[in-house]
């Protein structure tokens, strides 16, 4: 009874702000766009799977999905490659330094997300700081902004803390005696990392990859601001349906499909635990 009372606000919150909106979007995805206010046929009046037929039939959406999955995969791996050494270094730093270093990792959150991404435009522009520096070294200015590279830099930069935090949480709890035991038994520093540190941090790696991958799949702002026109992601497709085409039902179908696609890795994660 008490337990139910304590959990009631949580369930209320989840129902109002998660379950109902998702059901609403799902219902909307089965209606049809019309020129009216609101711009769709009444919900569940005549459910029509036409939007899903288009979604699976039109290569435009499939390509967008694949492109988004590719971008999210590459970005999560970049975050892992950069974040793992950082998390390990923080976990191995003297105790009095650790909280300061973690604070530095989270410091960018103190400024607006859009502001930080816009700052990258200034860095990556044809006459931006990076190209100015390259010219100093006698390298011709490179086309950076509005390319896939710029988009990957932006996503990796924005999501890196989400990789570092779970990795650090895992690595900071590792038992230094295990690494000593491995050294004692003849393992070189690299072998210790390969056979002890890395396998024991696997749950942290999985959590970090999920925390980066899942939001990165639906990312809209960074591909839009930094990526080229070729970076036609599912986030941008959704935006176009909703705002450019005013096809709310189609946008809802895209959103629902995205949710289903993301449920797969999340369920896998849960069963792993």
């Amino acid at each position: 009874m008490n337990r139910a009372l304590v959990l009631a606000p949580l369930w209320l919150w989840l129902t109002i702000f998660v379950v109902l909106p998702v059901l609403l979007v799902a219902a909307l995805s089965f209606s049809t766009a019309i020129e009216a206010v609101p711009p769709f046929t009444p919900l569940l009046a005549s459910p029509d799977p036409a939007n899903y037929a288009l979604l699976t039939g039109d290569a435009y959406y499939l390509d967008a999905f694949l492109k988004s999955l590719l971008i999210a995969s590459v970005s999560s791996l970049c975050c892992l490659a950069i974040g793992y050494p950082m998390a390990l270094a923080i976990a191995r730093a003297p105790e009095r330094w650790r909280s300061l270093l973690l604070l530095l990792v989270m410091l960018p959150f103190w400024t607006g997300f859009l502001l930080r991404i816009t700052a990258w435009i200034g860095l990556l522009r044809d006459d931006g700081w990076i190209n100015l520096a390259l010219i100093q070294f006698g390298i011709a200015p490179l086309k950076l902004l509005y390319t896939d590279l710029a988009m990957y830099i932006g996503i990796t930069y924005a999501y890196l803390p989400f990789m570092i935090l779970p990795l650090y949480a895992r690595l900071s709890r590792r038992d230094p005696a295990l690494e000593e035991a491995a050294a004692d038994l003849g393992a070189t520093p690299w072998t210790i990392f390969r056979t002890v540190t890395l396998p024991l941090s696997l749950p942290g790696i999985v959590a970090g990859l999920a925390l980066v991958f899942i939001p990165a799949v639906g990312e809209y702002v960074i591909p839009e601001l930094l990526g080229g026109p070729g970076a036609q992601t599912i986030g941008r497709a959704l935006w176009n349906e909703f705002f450019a085409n005013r096809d709310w039902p189609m946008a809802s179908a895209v959103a629902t499909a995205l949710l289903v696609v993301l449920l797969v890795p999340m369920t896998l994660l849960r069963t792993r635990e």
Partner: protein
Amino acid sequence: MADLSIQGLTVRYGPVAALSDLDLDISSGELFVLLGGSGSGKTTLLRTLGGFIEPSAGRILLGDQDITRLPPHRRPVNTTFQSYALFPHMTVADNVAFGLRRQGVPKPEIAQRVEALLDLVRLRDFAGRKPDALSGGQRQRVALARALAPRPRLLLLDEPLSALDRSLREQTRQELLRIQAQTGTTFIMVTHDQDEALAMASRIGLLENGRLAQIGTPADLYERPASRYVAAFMGNDNVFPATRLAPDRVEIDGVGPLQTANPVPTTPFWIAIRPERLRLAQADALNSAGGTVLTAAYFGDSADYAVRLDAGATLQLVQPLSAGFGTGLLPLGTPVTVALPPDALTILSA
């Protein structure tokens, strides 16, 4: 012949010396016990031998090889850690095989040797289990098998029995002795428990503030402590300042004049008397003192008494409770005579 030779070993943490100018030779096949309280430097010494602490000065020779500056993974020395430090993501067999894989031992031989080691520690049926699924005693034996696998010249054991409960400790102690005898490996074991040291050691090194207070056989430390600190650490509370009366006669404060078996020095000295060497006597004997029973504790096969002497001192004594000594516990306040045999008086110069 000394297999391990520690020469002038010093470890400093800032201004504090954890080990000061330590010299120690240990022979091949010994079970050497490093005994000491917390902060005595025993763990520092063990970790320095393992290569985890770099000494500030001194040398460590293993045979003719100077291993002072070798990193842990290049020393023919293995350790069993106090927490066991078993790899939780590997099976028992993989834990034991870890060191062999690092040495590049061929696979069929690894399988063979792992099996032999698991037989040695009686864990053959547990090869496929993860450490989490083992009891404390079993983990201890896996740690031992894992450390013995690379056939180290020297095995370091950090408080191997401290995490086990009492009954298991006794059993594991005997296992350790059996395995040591069977493999012939030199063992250096750290403990804070003097009973453990007495029961297991071929020799004991008692550490006090980073220096060796005494090195000797268990009987040496027990019967012939080199100092008041050693006597107290080995569980002897009967230590008193004394003055010289004659070459074979002393006056102990609060006890009285006594005959000694050994010559008395002319420099200041102390007298230590083991509680079990004292006897309750009926009549006045040579070297006796009168008093009353202050406290009494019954242990079945023996009784512990504290006797307040008429002259002022309090003596701890242990009486066997068996044929010839009576079986009952004396009531508090009973007047008794304590016999102090001359050869029970140990003279301590410091």
